[in-house]
């Protein structure tokens, strides 16, 4: 592909469910028209975190993000949304109708220059504004790496807290989408997790996206907010209509379990849920954790879980080597060593550039998660329920 930008028609297909991975097809790459994700719903959310009953709408993720941006622009006159093509609604429709409502001075296109988008945002934010910058694809965030790493992340520290750009939020769609190839599929979160001074947040669903985005925008620190583009249209759930935030640096237990802990974020959690379902048929109880904020991450919650289960599997789309899973594995091995009954597993993308036609092979699919679980879990044939050991025994059958 010579031009790096898709035409709009193609872009809209990028997030079409027809081309999306099927969350219910066992990791096999088949079309899944009309099927929706089954995450923890907004109803669960409302019940668990907001005791009062709230009005909700059943919407997809780009609409939830659009709602969040709408809420911010409406409630804070010193907030601005800008980036390439955001004026007409953005290539993923997240900024739909915002310019019409809030004016072209608060919602505007910028020239095509990622480093200047972020640099401009830093300047705007440092003057006490909420600068919400969109990088069209996370694959194109690298020209802005210098501004994020050397400027945004250090703005407060280097000035002794005289200045800060905490009002800056950089949104970027990340991750696999079925046909994105090298430059419309990458998951670059680990690069940013090596940068003290910024926060990295990744939502897994519409209601999470709205609450976490509102929290990120209002957080007094610069945040890089990666949105799983696969879910923009595919994930649909009840989302509270009102303004609400979800806490940053606070992981969430999506499913309670006792035999093994699974940690992930963003779109990968759908795959991990399927793996949990699959092994639950064998009587293996999985605890699934959505990390939500990657830095600073909620280590204590993961530690508590692993101290309970004795096993940990981390999964992400990004290449395994140097991925953020490595940090979690090392950290938990250090703090939970005596409780671990098996080596920490990582089920991640391969150490190749993101491949187009080989995407189904590259991806950390449910099958790979199951295989990894088998490495940790063996079935004692003399018992009616599985007994978990630290390593595979020769007589293990699963």
């Amino acid at each position, binding site marked *: 592909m010579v031009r790096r930008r898709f035409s709009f028609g193609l872009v809209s297909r990028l997030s079409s469910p027809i081309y999306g991975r099927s969350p219910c097809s066992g990791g096999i790459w088949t079309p899944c028209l009309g099927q929706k994700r089954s995450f923890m719903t907004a109803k669960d959310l409302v019940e668990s975190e907001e005791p009062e009953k709230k009005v909700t709408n059943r919407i997809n993720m780009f609409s939830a993000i659009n709602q969040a941006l709408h809420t911010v622009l409406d409630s804070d006159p010193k907030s601005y949304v800008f980036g390439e093509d955001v004026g007409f609604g953005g290539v993923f429709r997240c900024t739909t109708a915002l310019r019409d409502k809030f004016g072209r001075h608060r919602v505007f296109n910028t*020239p095509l*220059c990622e480093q*200047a988008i972020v640099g401009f945002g830093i*300047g705007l934010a*440092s003057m006490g504004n909420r600068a919400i910058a969109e990088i069209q694809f996370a694959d194109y965030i690298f*020209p802005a790496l210098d501004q994020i790493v050397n400027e945004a992340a250090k703005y407060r520290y280097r*000035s*002794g807290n005289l200045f800060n750009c905490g009002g800056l939020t950089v949104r970027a769609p990340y991750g696999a989408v079925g046909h994105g190839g090298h430059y419309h599929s990458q998951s670059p979160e680990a690069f940013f997790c090596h940068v003290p001074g910024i926060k990295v947040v990744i939502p897994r669903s519409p209601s999470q996206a709205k609450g976490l985005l509102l929290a990120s925008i209002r957080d007094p620190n610069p945040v890089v907010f990666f949105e799983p583009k696969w879910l923009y249209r595919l994930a649909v759930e009840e989302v509270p209509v009102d303004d609400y935030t979800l806490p940053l640096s606070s992981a969430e237990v999506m499913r309670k379990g006792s035999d093994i802990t699974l940690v992930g974020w963003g779109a990968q959690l759908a795959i991990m849920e399927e793996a949990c379902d699959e092994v639950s048929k064998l009587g293996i109880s999985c605890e699934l954790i959505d990390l939500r904020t990657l830095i600073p991450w909620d280590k204590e919650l993961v530690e508590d879980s692993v101290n309970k289960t004795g096993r940990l599997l981390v999964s992400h789309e990004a290449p395994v080597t140097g991925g953020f899973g490595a940090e979690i594995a090392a950290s938990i091995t250090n703090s939970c060593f005596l409780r671990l009954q098996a080596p920490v597993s990582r089920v991640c993308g391969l150490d190749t550039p993101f491949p187009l036609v080989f995407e189904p092979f590259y991806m950390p699919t449910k099958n790979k998660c199951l295989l990894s679980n088998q490495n940790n879990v063996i079935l004692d044939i003399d018992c009616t329920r599985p007994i978990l050991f630290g390593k595979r025994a020769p007589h293990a059958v699963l």
Partner: protein
Amino acid sequence: MMVPKPASSWARLITTGLLRRPSHPFHASRSTIAPVRFPSSPSCGPFASVLRERQFCSSSSSGDESEDHLDEFLDFPGAKVGFINKIKFTAERPQEPVPCFRVLDDHGRLIKDAYMPEVDKPLAIRMYQNMVTLQVMDTLFFEAQRQGRFSFYLTTFGEEAINIASAAALNNDDMVYAQYREPGVLMWRGFTLKEFANQCFSNVADYGKGRQMPVHYGSAKLNYPTVSSPIGTQLPHAVGAAYAFKMDQKPLCTTTFFGEGASSEGDFHGAMNFAAVLEVPVLFICRNNGFAISTPASEQFKSDGVVAKGHAYGMRSIRVDGNDTLAMYATVKAARKMAVEESRPILIEALTYRVGHHSTSDDSGKYRKGDEMQHWKTMRDPVLRFRRWLEGEGWWDTDAEQKLRSDARNEVISALQSAGSQMKQPLTNLFTDVYDTIPRNLIQQEKELRSTVGRHHEDYPSDVPLY
């Protein structure tokens, strides 16, 4: 005439009077760029003859307007362009470099008919006092670094006029996004010698809390965001901040300083383009001092310096003699007025010369000639030039000069002594300000570090207090 090589020739051109003075000092950009003929331009090399054979030509060589179809237009998105029926390339550069505005000649004499800004005696004296104080501070701080009292320093020698005259022409509420060779702006706004010294010593009173190398000053009170080392990164910040001024309808602008080397960075191009497109009040002041560390401007770009780039972005631009305090003041004053009143960016290329080394880590004698450095240091010193004008006006004399330099020297020495005797920043500031609050991982890391330091405190600096 041949187009002179941009960098190495500017100084000579100014000296020999080859650069024309503009008809009006605020002539932001020339309305017509005279076409240029390059019949045997060596830069064309072997391609020149090929081009001639194919009867290609640059915009210069046609001159056959009768065949241009100027009555027809192409309605292209964002532009309406006429047609011609000949292949005609634009010239790579205008025939002559953009001329350089100045008010004073090398001897500090007012040039006949030159635009004279309104500068009264108190303002002129204050500017001069700041320039001298900056020079004295640089001299003594440089020596202090050489004596090992702090790790690094970087002087502003030769660029005192750009520093002080720009600052004087701005409103003190204008945000200034500086590089690292503009401490004079801070000085003008009231940053004290002790405050400069505190930062260089990373002492307990350093606003930056000991986290950055010397000369990375910053002051919230003085609207001067803390300097960082990467080149050109501050430019898009200035654009974003200017957008904030515009949206808040404040009659202010932002100003960003950078060297000619920074004009090669992507951030420069992004910032210039954003500023023009978003129509924000920002002044881009380029200190073209001839060198990016050792790389001469002639190896930095092929364009007519930095000023030429403004046209490409649709931005009013001007070239000014950066060693002429009055010209610098007049230029920034006029540019600021346009920026604020018309909400537009302005590019100012100030021609100067970095008389000092790049920094204390540099020995510029390895890449430039001593007599060139000496010439600029003695014959083209902006401080001396301005002093001569002051003396010509009857506002300054030798006694005042001696007293000023003596007082400045004493104040700088006193600041160094006072700042140097204080403790460094306390250990706790290693962990604060990474985020607005200290995250749990850092609380844990501080605990572990303190445990280690407690057992081996002899291995750690004794001047860093452990609270």
